[in-house]
């Protein structure tokens, strides 16, 4: 039941993001006569402070949040797993060095670092992706490193070494498949975090720039009129809430599912 709900919400998110790209939505059409209009038959989520239809902006914004989430989690997962696995597998001075680097990154609150980076590089979608990825890989690297450290002590790795398997083969065949489960679970939770982080950056004006809509920037714009016209905050806010909830539920479910006790 809860799984169905989560999958339904996520499917809507992806469909909306795709629809935003192909269907003729009008997120930039300013209609000064309808400023702050509440929901009605023609615009069922109402209009914002410039008279733009909120539904259209929400749909197009979904595309950006999905795009950022997928890209950032993909880059973080790949880079983090690679760095963590290499660090643990190689050991020695390289491991020492990488662990220090990871520690330094972890010493800062992630979102603060991302804000600093985005501020340095200037606002924009690309820079949001870069900033969040630069922060995001650390968690995956630490997880991957811990996994490899325990897995490489196992007898089947020793057996593979004595069968003449090289390092690449061992990492690819004997380590990655066994650490996939925790990494996938971590990735689903990261999706939720990234969606919120992107909204936060956009809320601060460091993310998507106007007039492009994103859920975060929509909440920022709406917050000024929250007491007068709550629908401007509620629409993107609830969308964000649903997506994060759904992704977390899916992550929980995946964790239970993949966490088969393998001796």
């Amino acid at each position, binding site marked *: 039941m809860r799984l169905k709900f989560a999958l339904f919400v996520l499917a809507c998110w992806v469909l909306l993001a795709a629809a935003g790209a192909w269907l003729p939505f009008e997120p930039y059409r300013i209609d000064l006569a309808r400023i702050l209009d509440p929901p009605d038959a023609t615009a069922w989520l109402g209009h914002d402070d410039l008279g733009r239809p909120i539904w259209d902006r929400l749909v197009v914004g979904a595309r950006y949040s999905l795009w950022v989430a997928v890209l950032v989690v993909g880059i973080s997962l790949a880079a983090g797993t690679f760095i963590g696995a290499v660090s643990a597998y190689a050991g020695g001075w390289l491991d020492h060095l990488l662990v220090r680097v990871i520690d330094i990154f972890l010493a800062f609150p992630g979102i603060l670092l991302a804000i600093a980076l985005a501020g340095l590089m200037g606002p924009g979608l690309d820079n949001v992706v870069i900033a969040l990825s630069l922060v995001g890989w650390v968690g995956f690297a630490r997880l991957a490193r811990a996994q490899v450290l325990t897995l490489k002590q*196992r*007898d089947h790795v*020793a*057996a593979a070494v*004595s069968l*003449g398997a*090289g390092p690449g083969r061992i990492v690819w065949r004997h380590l990655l498949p066994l650490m996939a489960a925790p990494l996938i679970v971590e990735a689903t939770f990261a999706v939720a975090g990234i969606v919120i982080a992107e909204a936060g950056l956009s809320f601060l004006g460091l993310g998507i720039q106007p007039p492009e809509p994103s859920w975060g920037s929509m909440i920022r714009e709406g917050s000024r009129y929250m007491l007068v016209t709550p629908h401007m905050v509620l629409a993107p806010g609830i969308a964000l809430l649903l997506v994060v909830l759904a992704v977390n539920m899916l992550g929980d479910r995946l964790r239970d599912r993949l966490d088969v006790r393998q001796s």
Partner: protein
Amino acid sequence: MNDKPGTDILLSIRNLTTCFETANGLLHAVDDVSFDIRRGETFALLGESGCGKSMTSLSIMRLVPEPAGRITRGQVLLDGRDLLRLPEAEMRRVRGNRIAMIFQEPMTSLNPVLSVGEQIGEAVRLHRGLRGRAAREVVLALLDAVGIPDPARRHDEYPHQLSGGMKQRVMIAIALAGEPDLLIADEPTTALDVTIQAQVLALLERLQEETGMAVLLITHDLGVVAGMADRVAVMYAGQIVETAPRDAFFAEPRHPYSRKLFESLPDIAKRDRPLSVIPGSVPPLYREFSACRFAERCAFAWEDCRASVPRWITEGERGVRCHLYDRVPASRRPLGAEAEATSSTPSAAPALSVASHDGELLEVEALQVHFPIQKGLFKRTVGYVRAVDGVSLRIGKGATVALVGESGCGKTTIGKAILQLIRPTAGRVLLEGTDLTALRGEALRRRRRDFQIIFQDPFSSMNPRMQVGDIIQEGLVALGLERDPARRQARVDALLEQVGLPREAKGRYPHEFSGGQRQRICIARALAVGPKLLVCDEPTSALDISVQAQILNLLRELQEALGLSYLFITHNLSVVGYLADEVAVMYLGRIVEYGPVDAVLNRARHPYTQALLSAIPVIDQETRREVIRLEGDLPSPAHPPEGCHFHTRCPHAMDACRRRYPGRTRLDGGHWVHCYLYE
């Protein structure tokens, strides 16, 4: 202890049935089990893994994991009172007070964050209502009673500061705190080394004499039963198939399963023939049985066995569940003398002689493996663990050399150092003249096909996400030995057949196989690359007796057929006697005695070897030796004692032993020893 009179019954179990709800249906883990335990006696419940012996003991304590498991039928009468009907609050007073329990793993049974004294003190407080100074006195007395030296100091130590044997003593002290009438000991010594096992068993025996408690001993080890038990019950597939007084049981086991267990024990006397094995496997316990559970695997089964469930037949002190003892008159039973003839399998291989040596395959010279002990922020090296400290040995082509020693003596490290899985600190490993320690990178990788390893735990040594076919051909692919996929598949098929598995095994995953089958897969994987040397690191220690026999037979056949050399690492001396040509006995990183198997096992010279041999529980009553009990535990290899490493535990230690490590003394026939007694 054989002549304990007590005929009054302490605990009586009647028709006990315990079921488990599983994905595959209702599992009858314990099925209609009845037996009695008398006051002061030791009753042994003997069986292989999964036969329901541990579940029986948990049922007695009402500790069956709920809600999946539940006791569906039967009575557990303690002094005539049915424990299964007691309210939980009252049952709690029985546990620990009347019946106490100790487990196999002392490491996990103690709480790591409480001191030993607190843990025993808790039991004392609960069961005797003592507090403060009075409780402490009792705890110290208990520690003293279980033979822990310096109780006042140990009282405030934590479990991690104690060795395995010490922890098991602490567990026993906790169990004794409530002065129980019955002690359930569930594989109490299985996780311990033989010399420590001998200490703990002697302790149990002494405590039993002092307190007059009864012991329910649950074990798979026939040797332990022979040494400890007054009466024996054999369990198979959830049922008791035979009960008998100890001496009668060992003189003449009646049930075909019991007989098979004896026959499949390896022994030096059996080395010229394959071990007898039990074909097939234990039937799944989901269904109702309409026939004898053992019929499928029994050499004596006839139509009655497959048509009806055998009833329980008693004859004086003995009982057996077998059709052979029902309607068939004694004279016509195919047991006894005729059984010997049928049990020596028709496919018996030609007499296996001691392998003829056609030159050396492996030479290990002065091998050292030292692990640095690092401390502090900058990982300063503050010392070394001398895991292997100057070991030399040779293995001839087609020969088997056994490396024997207790855990922590460095035998596994030697195996890994020979395979270059751990790089040695010093010394050479020559395989057909090539020094493996000098090889690096690609050159070493190419050479790896010549030497392979088989591990103790066959499951963890296989990647659970790979299919068996891929596991077996891994070496062929990794080394590029066979690039044609079709020919590779044919090779996998041939290997599976060679180790006695069906071809369909290819497409399945390791968890779908039993322990013995998994070990066969591991052997096939090692054989795939065509090795000359196989390092077998305790390959049968995790397996049941009957499965161990199958694997030992397989290893022998393969040696005959392929001319393999084995380095057989084990702590089990009866396996050594059956399989090895030469034996090296290790103590704290060094070989203390070396020689042909017959010389070392029958004319052991080093006091440590003698103690090791005497500590093995033996079945044969006539050959029972006086146990040379070693005091204390293995010292740490980080700080080996000055002089001879063994002098701290040696009954013959002299002044010279404390000063210098003894040199090598050659005895006759390639037998040598490091000991001042023979210099």
